């Protein structure tokens, strides 16, 4: 197991190297000039040139890349933000906390609800509850996050006054954004669980278990679910990775200071150090989540051995 993890981590190094180059090029070759955006239309040509020089933007791309990698590998940080002039790493760390909390809460209830709805639908295939479950999930997947967020805010904050509209600080601040964020994920998990369970329910070993007279609920919870959860876990891992990248829409609607809004702000202001750092970080997150997903296969089903 340990060898597997170490090998996987070593395998990530070339991928990260490629990502660092691609993210750097993506940021630097996209149109838009940080100096022009930050300082407006009326900055004089001399001031413009001196600022670009000072920010190192006139250096060849390979020099700028070298500086970026030097900061990252030697100093272990992502440099200083053009916009705020404060350390990028510190700010990312702070915002990552907000994103992590929101993601975890959203995922917990999305997993619980998604799996329960999926199991109910699969075990009572074609019943009324199955149909209701599946129609609800299609609806939930189709509902735009923005609309859902605004509606929830309208009902539960403005009309009922139960939760704050936006901001952070208390548990109640988490409720509406996490529901908005988890809604679609729960629906996807439910559909995956259902189809995966149905597939496994048709397997020979289920028939054998039934023939042995085991209880249906025991068969579902113990035998079927363990096998059926593999694709669900893969998909849940991917969703988790996406949400960790920050949900721009939910963060905008609820004014949540996470990584999604940070990325948008940094792209709009062409804050190169922040944008580069965030793209790099999101890639690492995906790699780590993928590794954890692979590890969880072995835990879910010991017949799957990690090599």
């Amino acid at each position, binding site marked *: 197991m340990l060898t597997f993890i170490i090998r996987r981590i070593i395998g990530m190094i070339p991928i990260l190297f490629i990502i660092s180059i691609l993210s750097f090029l993506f940021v630097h070759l996209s149109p*838009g*000039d940080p100096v022009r955006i*930050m300082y407006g239309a009326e900055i004089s040509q001399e001031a413009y040139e001196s600022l670009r020089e000072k920010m190192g933007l006139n250096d060849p791309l390979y020099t700028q890349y070298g500086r970026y990698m030097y900061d990252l590998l030697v100093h272990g940080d992502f440099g200083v933000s053009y916009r705020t002039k404060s350390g990028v790493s510190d700010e990312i760390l702070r915002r990552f906390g907000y994103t992590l909390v929101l993601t975890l809460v959203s995922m917990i209830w999305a997993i619980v609800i998604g799996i329960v709805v999926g199991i109910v639908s699969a075990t009572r295939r074609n019943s009324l509850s199955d149909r209701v479950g599946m129609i609800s999930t299609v609806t939930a997947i189709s509902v735009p996050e923005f609309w859902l967020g605004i509606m929830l805010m309208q009902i539960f904050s403005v009309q009922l006054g139960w939760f704050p509209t936006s901001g952070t600080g208390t548990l109640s601040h988490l409720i509406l954004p996490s529901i908005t964020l988890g809604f679609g994920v729960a629906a996807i998990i439910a559909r995956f669980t259902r189809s995966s369970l149905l597939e496994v329910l048709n397997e020979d070993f289920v028939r054998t278990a039934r023939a042995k007279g085991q209880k249906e609920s025991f068969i579902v919870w113990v035998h079927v679910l*363990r096998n059926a959860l593999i694709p669900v876990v893969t998909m849940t891992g991917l969703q988790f990775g996406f949400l960790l990248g920050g949900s721009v829409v939910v963060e905008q609607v609820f004014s949540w200071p996470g990584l999604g809004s940070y990325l948008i702000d940094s792209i709009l*202001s062409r804050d190169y150090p922040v944008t580069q750092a965030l793209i790099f970080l999101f890639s690492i997150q995906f790699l780590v989540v993928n590794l954890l997903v692979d590890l969880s296969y072995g835990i879910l089903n010991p017949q799957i051995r990690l090599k």
Partner: protein
Amino acid sequence: MKVLRWKQLSSMIFLLLIVMSVVVGCSKDNSTKSNSDQKETKETAEQDASKKGSKELVVVLEGEPTSLDPQNSTDGNSSNVQESIFEGLLTFDSEMKLVPLLAKNYSFNEDATAITFELKEGIVFHDGTPFNAEVVKANLDFVRNEENGLARASFFEFINEVVVDNEYKVTIKSKEPNSAMAAYMAHASASFKSVEEIKKKQADSNYNLDRNPVGTGPFTFGEWRDGVHVKLKASDNYWDKDNQPKLSGIVFKPVTEANTRVNMLKTGEADVVTKLPTQSVKELSDTEGIDVFTGPSLNLFYVGMSLKHEKYQDVRVRQALNYAVNKDQLISQVMDGYGVVADSAIAPGVSGYAKQEAYEYNLEKAKQLLADAGYEKGFKATLWTRNETEFIAVAENVAIQLKAAGIEVEVQALESGTLFDKLDNNQGTDLWIGRWSPSTGEADWGLRPNFGSDRVPPSYNNSGFYVNKEVDQLLQKALQSPTEEGRLENYGKLQEIVFKDAPWIFLYVPENSVAKRSNVDNVTILPSDDVRVNGAEKK
């Protein structure tokens, strides 16, 4: 079963870990909050003892400020926060008239090449250092030095020298006659920071002036948490005894989503909200407990035309486009009626504005002018716009209207940075939606950046490459007029020429809209988009 038990156990541990991290995450939030709450409660209690007001005002802005250094920011969100911390020699009143603030009075010399300010005495910065003529000189010298890389360096380009006459008297000498100097010195970027801060920056180039604002204003800096808030506290020793702050502090929150800003006001989480979407203005006006202000802004929306294109070089084509757009319809459909038709190249609130005869909607005349210019079958054009709701709506409306005149317009929505880049590099520029607001409130800053031949790209705003020697001469003459009459006369002539020449399709002047809770008094909205809450009171 052994496997099952282990699996159950491991699942439980996993779940427990997740729950724990959530709880820890949230409790960290809570603890941070409770700690800061405790701190704030203590501070508030201390302030209670010394001040009448003990309430905090929550102002919601449409975005994060970029800097709290008045000389290093160009956006409205930053200046809204800075206004409570910093002060300058002069300021604008609610009608954009110049009034003294840190200065007692000011006077021009005969040929408008120098302006002398007498300063008020006994004013101190939040760090206890005195305000005097040396401070004015140090600030202006610092910002003018382009090596310091401050965003407003070019704004002070007109200055040749700053002379300290005595401790409380300072003279600013310009490179050439400049009657707009006083308006420049009333601008938010001509506010002063403590010399101690400038010294810190000079000693250490990494020192962050953007985040360490020390001014003479009624509120002092508390805390800036990115994406969350900027907190200010009432100053304990504000110099102006008649205008002491009536609040314990102000919290500025950036909320980009307009619907959320409106909802925050409804629930009482916000006291003052800037930049309301026009569709919310009507709704909020009817809501109990909320007051809405609307007032004319200094902004002007236009469609720029690139005179590099042959078709726009013919003035008849440019005028035809102006006749082909029904601005009243545009205002009612896009702005819900909150705006007025542009009848000059600058808004009516700008000092130096001269009303022109607006281009009435006349499709037949437009078609005739196009035919006269040899475009009886019309032509195809591309209209660039920022990918922001209002800009896109304007562009689409203009495109539909121009189609009736035979001009096939394709709308392309671009992210603003990309749009600037394309305009700066003249990359196939054709038509684009623009907006301009002269933040000094006077005509020079309204006209020169857009129509001066020395302001063509790269970087500058005359993206249509409009060059007219007469306009250039009038810009100079107006700026060099030592008398108000001369200034107005020259700007009047200039606006007449530009309006007839029609390098833009002159669209409309939108209204500013700000809403507040009814229990908040003394909030002022300026035509320049600035919202002043320094004198605000919360009942």
